[in-house]
């Protein structure tokens, strides 16, 4: 379970406050969606949860199964089960996709005191996962995200998620830049991972993704806060009417 309480965040370098008291709880096994206007703080929330530099938490807490995330190194958060599919996946020239993933899988296992995955076993699992996401062998060998198309990068994020088997998955606009078929593929990838022990926080602008990944709860974020929470119908409302009505109602 992810519990975010009264989270206030400003930029480290300047006095700009971005998150102004976020309260959000994602129960284990549930899928929550966050929608909200551009610049409302959705990506910032996901970065702060995963431990990126450049932000200062001035108040609040974020706990994953009772463990305070905000005090942990990014790698420790990952080992604790947190995963962020980036809005803009990063290109890393010179580091093979396969090497990267194997290093990551085994680093997490090591951190949790589990046995490392053998080269053979890893190869078998990654081939299977890649196949379902229609990622070809060539993409696995290439440097991480280098020369990947926008959609390939997003599928690669889902592949990483599948390999790392996190407890709490945050997907930041994983649907943007995907064609209709790729979106179905990604949604199927996500749905295949849905389980009792795994939660999702899906950040998106469009109802379309939520047609495939049916959320249990939908939140609206505006100006650094969760301003409204509801069921799947809330996403439809946004799709049809935009944010104006909702924002007028809460402000």
């Amino acid at each position, binding site marked *: 379970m992810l519990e975010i309480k009264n989270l206030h965040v400003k930029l480290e370098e300047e006095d700009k406050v971005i998150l102004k008291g976020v309260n959000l709880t994602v129960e284990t096994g549930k899928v929550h969606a966050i929608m909200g206007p551009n610049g409302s703080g959705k990506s910032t929330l996901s970065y702060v949860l995963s*431990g990126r530099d450049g932000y200062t938490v001035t108040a609040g807490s974020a706990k994953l199964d009772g463990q305070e995330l905000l005090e942990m*190194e990014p790698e420790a958060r990952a080992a604790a089960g947190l995963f962020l599919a980036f809005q803009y996946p990063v290109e890393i020239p010179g580091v093979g996709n396969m090497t990267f993933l194997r290093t990551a899988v085994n*680093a997490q296992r090591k951190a949790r005191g589990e046995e490392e995955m053998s080269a053979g076993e890893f190869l078998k699992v990654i081939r299977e996962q890649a196949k379902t996401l229609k990622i070809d062998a060539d993409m696995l060998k290439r440097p991480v995200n280098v020369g990947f198309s926008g959609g390939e990068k997003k599928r690669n994020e889902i592949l990483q998620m599948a390999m790392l088997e996190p407890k709490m998955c945050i997907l930041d606009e994983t649907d943007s830049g995907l064609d209709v078929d790729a979106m179905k593929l990604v949604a199927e990838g996500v749905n295949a991972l849905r389980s009792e022990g795994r939660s999702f926080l899906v950040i998106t602008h469009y109802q379309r993704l939520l047609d495939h990944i049916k959320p249990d709860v939908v939140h609206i974020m505006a100006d650094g806060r969760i301003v409204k929470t509801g069921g799947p119908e809330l996403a439809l409302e946004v799709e049809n009417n935009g944010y104006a009505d909702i924002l007028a109602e809460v402000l």
Partner: protein
Amino acid sequence: MAAPARSAEAEARLAGLQLPQSGAWLHLARGAAVSRLRAMGLPVKRDEYWKYTDPTPLTVAAVPVAQVIPGETEGFDGIDCLRLVFVDGVFDAAASDNPALAGVEISRLAEAATQDIHWAHEVYGVLEARGQTPVARPLAALNSALATDGVLIRVVGKVSKPVALVYHQTSTASDAILHHCVKVEDGAELTLLESGPAGARSNTVMEVQVADGAAFHHVRTQGRDHERRTLTHVFARMGNASRFKSFTLTANGALTRNEVVLELIGADGVAHVAGAALGNGMFHHDDTVFITHQGTGCESRQVFKKVLRNGATGVFQGKILVKQSAQKTDGYQISQSLLLDDDSQFLCKPELEIYADDVKCSHGSTSGAIDDTALFYLRSRGVPEREAQSLLVLAFLAEAIAEIDDATIAEAIQARLESWLAAGAH
């Protein structure tokens, strides 16, 4: 013209050393080298060519003390090769393999007096002397004059395994002056490996003649002996359609200057020179390369990468000279440094001098910090910071390592690099 003070220094240095006993031809070659040295004098910091590197530790008569690093495994452990061992600059026959190997003739320089090795007359001191213009390299002349040992290798066929020159240092004050000559005859091929500290201070010259259609591969590691002062010169002269590849992996060392002076004489030759260096703290590493294109249609490529931290200094001086005759030249040069903190520095002087009109030459140089976004991405996937940084360092060095043709040797280099990174050598 040498200033009188510099000549006096050269005399002082010569006075402290004895011209080794040699056979007639070698004696003459050494005498000629002494004259060259006297005419040039020893290098000093104000020389343009030594602007970024102070040569004093290499020129002073008293050897700066260098501790011996115990228990360091040999650079090419586990690779099947013919090992020739030198201890503090002296060949150790007992520790070496039997030098009998099909396709190659190997003799020891110190014994060349009693054997008349004809081909070496045209190589020993000859390539070095050619390399004295347009830039003087007095310490290479000093080496030709005073070398105490080395090997003469003539390659006549394809050799079944690499020849490895393995250096050990046992004394904290050894002053090793090694001189090797290699002649790779028409169509022949040799892989030569070098590893380990030749001495507390070392001055190594290798002259390589690569004949028509021949290939010479050179892979070298310079290890973790922090207090080492090392100067190396590789002088190479290449025939038609010949190939030359040299790669050096360096970690630490108080002073390391690796010079490569290479002439593409014949047509369609290919010469690649690459280096990967890791410097942490008291580290000064200098790659100085001078490639002359004379033949038509030749390709030269220089790839040098340095990872620096804790006040380490990296230097790159690389020149491509394309003579008027060298049409269709393809010259490429890249020198890059990854600075892991603000204390380190990279000094770079790339030079192109082109007299032919139909050529393709490019060079680039960059100096940058580690990519924080990439570092975070890796950490967000659970890779600990140190390991993530090592991955990015390896990625940065990959282009240089890719210059090693032999997969097994490349793996050995990669493994060594990884172990150095794990041990915190960077």
